[in-house]
């Protein structure tokens, strides 16, 4: 019996998910025992072939991404969207807040642009699911190697696979004290940047220390590695339910926890709440009042 064929394409992204896969080290050898890799970033120059499992990494950011994705999807049986860019649209999706010409002008100067061999940007960044059916979604920036291998394993076996759906607080080891008390006061009298604090209690919930942590608004499954390592959650796994706006819910959840006046004056409330999930927002892009709706 021939081995299942695995293909891996990279759209708009940083290829960090691919690095996460490579981090499997010996695990890769085991993977190669059970699959035949027919297309991957390492098999440069080959054309996309028929496959059983297609890994898609990165968001749709250019006309080329869209073409490559549609072509690959047509040749694949099971599609695994890998990483936050593919699943949620990712960090690059924050460009949706600006018209494409402004983005280009900002990068290349007014009237400038990339060389003509570079594909045109799409009007906005899209998650893969905007174009094709996704069978398994593995959010994370980047997904943990083990998570990725587990999802690939399921795709090869034809099993359903999903990450746990609770929010990240479920996995976080930090203790909640004030958060558990009934009080009309906020848990902190201000909102602080991480570097503004002299000391940070390594065992106490970040929110209680006045530090915005995206844990409540973010799907678990990462093992709470950031909060364990002393960094507040940045929300990379996206919301527990894709119909629950991560940025909007940041407001809904935190408005009674931290002083809203202080939240309002965050340097970047939008970038905090929507860092990874702008393209799947109810409002996936800003209106371009001069050139029409940039979603079109």
């Amino acid at each position, binding site marked *: 019996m021939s081995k299942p064929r695995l293909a891996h394409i990279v759209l708009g992204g940083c290829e960090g998910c691919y690095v996460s896969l490579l981090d499997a080290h010996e695990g890769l050898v085991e993977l190669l025992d059970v699959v035949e890799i027919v297309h991957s970033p390492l098999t440069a120059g080959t054309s996309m072939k028929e496959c059983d499992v297609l890994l898609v990494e990165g968001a749709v950011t250019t006309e080329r991404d869209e073409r490559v994705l549609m072509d690959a999807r047509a040749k694949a049986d099971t599609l695994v969207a890998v990483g936050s860019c593919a699943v949620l649209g990712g960090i690059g999706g924050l460009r949706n807040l600006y018209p494409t010409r402004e983005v280009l002008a900002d990068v290349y100067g007014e009237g400038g642009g990339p060389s003509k061999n570079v594909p045109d940007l799409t009007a906005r960044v899209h998650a893969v699911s905007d174009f094709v059916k996704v069978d398994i979604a593995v959010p994370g920036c980047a997904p943990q190697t083990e998570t990725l291998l587990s999802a690939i394993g399921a795709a090869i076996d034809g099993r359903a696979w999903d990450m746990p759906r609770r929010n990240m607080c479920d996995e976080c080891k930090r203790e909640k004290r004030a958060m558990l008390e009934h009080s009309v006061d906020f848990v902190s009298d201000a909102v602080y940047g991480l570097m503004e604090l002299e000391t940070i209690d390594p065992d106490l919930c970040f929110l209680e220390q006045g530090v915005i942590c995206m844990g409540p608004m973010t799907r678990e499954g990462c093992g709470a590695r950031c909060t364990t390592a002393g960094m507040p959650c940045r929300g990379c796994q996206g919301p527990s339910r894709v119909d629950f706006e991560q940025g909007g819910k940041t407001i809904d959840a935190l408005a*009674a926890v931290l002083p809203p006046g202080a939240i*309002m004056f965050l340097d970047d409330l939008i970038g905090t709440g929507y860092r990874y999930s702008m393209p799947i927002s109810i409002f996936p892009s800003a209106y371009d009042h001069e050139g029409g709706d940039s979603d079109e």
Partner: protein
Amino acid sequence: MALGLYVSRASGKVDSAIDIEKAISDARDEAAVVRVVDELFDADVQARMLKDIVDAELDAIVLAGHSVQHYATSLSGQHLQERLIDAGLNPNRIVIANILEQVALVHPEDKAGATAKARALINVAVSRAQVAKPVEGHSTEPRHAALILGVTTEALVAAQRLLQLGYSVILADRTDGRARATEASRMRATAAYILGHPKAEFIDNAHMLDGHGWLGDFEVTLHTDGNRATFRVGGIVLARPDVREWIEELRQHFKVDIDDDGNARSIDPETHPAETVDPGIVVVPVRQKDEPVRNIIASADSAAMALVLRLSVDTTVHFSDVSSVDESLCGGCASCVRTCAFGACYIGEDGLSHVDERRCRACGKCVVSCPVGARDIMSSPHDHLVGAVRSLAEAEVPGERVLGFLCGGCGYPAADSASTYIAESGTTYPASFLPVRIPCGGRLDTIYVLEAFRAGFNGVVVFRCREGHCHNLIGNVDMDRRINLLRTVLRSRNLDDSRLRIVDISPFEGERFVEQVNELYAALGGLANGKGGPQ
């Protein structure tokens, strides 16, 4: 799901303004039984409904006609609901489409607009009946005991009546209630009856520390002279509706509406002087200057009677309106714990959120604060509200649509009151204003506002209670915080955030309601951006 749709012509008031057949044209496809009747409250109509429930095995009923408010504050409305529940319908599957006070009476000159709006509201009600899950009832044998707050003439008269009917009575006073009762010259006989009664107890120098429960089964802890004492009663009589301390302490645990002067008020001071929004709590009206004694005694009788009517039954049923938590979603972040003003939410030993139903007032703030959607309000579920926004956006009303989120405590009754003002003044607002009822301003999720703008509404307005008037204490304040933060999100998408407005209002301010809706329309007319497409 077998659905019954009953549409009231309201004795000509509805069909003069609305083409009923057209308004129910979509709903006809969904309903097993459709009847258009003259009045829903007629005995033969009700008998017909009860027969339909059996014959057509109805699981849900949509009553199109009078306002939700009518069902809460009128005997006819309450009675109809009770009969439907007795016939086996779950209370959450009795859904009201307000096409009288908020449509027919508002747009008497715009039949096309009124018909389209009625159609949209009926469709929303039908889909709510379809998505709403049945609520579970807690049956209690009601305690024949009452806690009376404030020793006044009203308190003594009410206490005497209750004692005579076999109830036990606790008379709590902030100072020296017993002494005042003893010395009372005018009510000497009444006071003497109470003072000597084995089932009467005076608690002086009292204030309320804690309270929970519902009609028939309240538990209240009072502090008195350095001691704590807990009482289990079936109902509470507020005999001093003008004492701020009692009101504030009550409001920490129970729903009590206050009027514009800050006094506790009944659901409708004109027709229901005693009953409050919390069915186990009654108030006496605030005394006018030189109030005749007969009025004071009548007030006491009225309050005692209102309570006795509620408690002189074999069982009272409390339907809990908050769902249990979805364990596959809740990670125990405790956002709900911090937002709950009643201390009802807590994180249990299992690390998940739980609700103490005896403390829950079903305001929905925990539902809004929950970042994963692990909990819901049964009577105002998330899917219904998102669906309502989308469905109203499709209403074939003329002109640019505006969506109004109406708090059930103030904005919604104010919209009803507007119908009276409109009839008197002839001034109205466009039929493209489409209302959604929410139980409290605090139930408003940022998702619903974003959804409204995406669906194409030109503007969104939230009518919420004045500061200090929210019967969920700070539902209005929390909503303000959220909605004002949401403005940043709207601006980031190049939407002019003046399209989103918050208006404070009292339940009887019909004129202000009309003015505010029209003001928003005028303001929207001057805005250029925010609708997408070339401007």
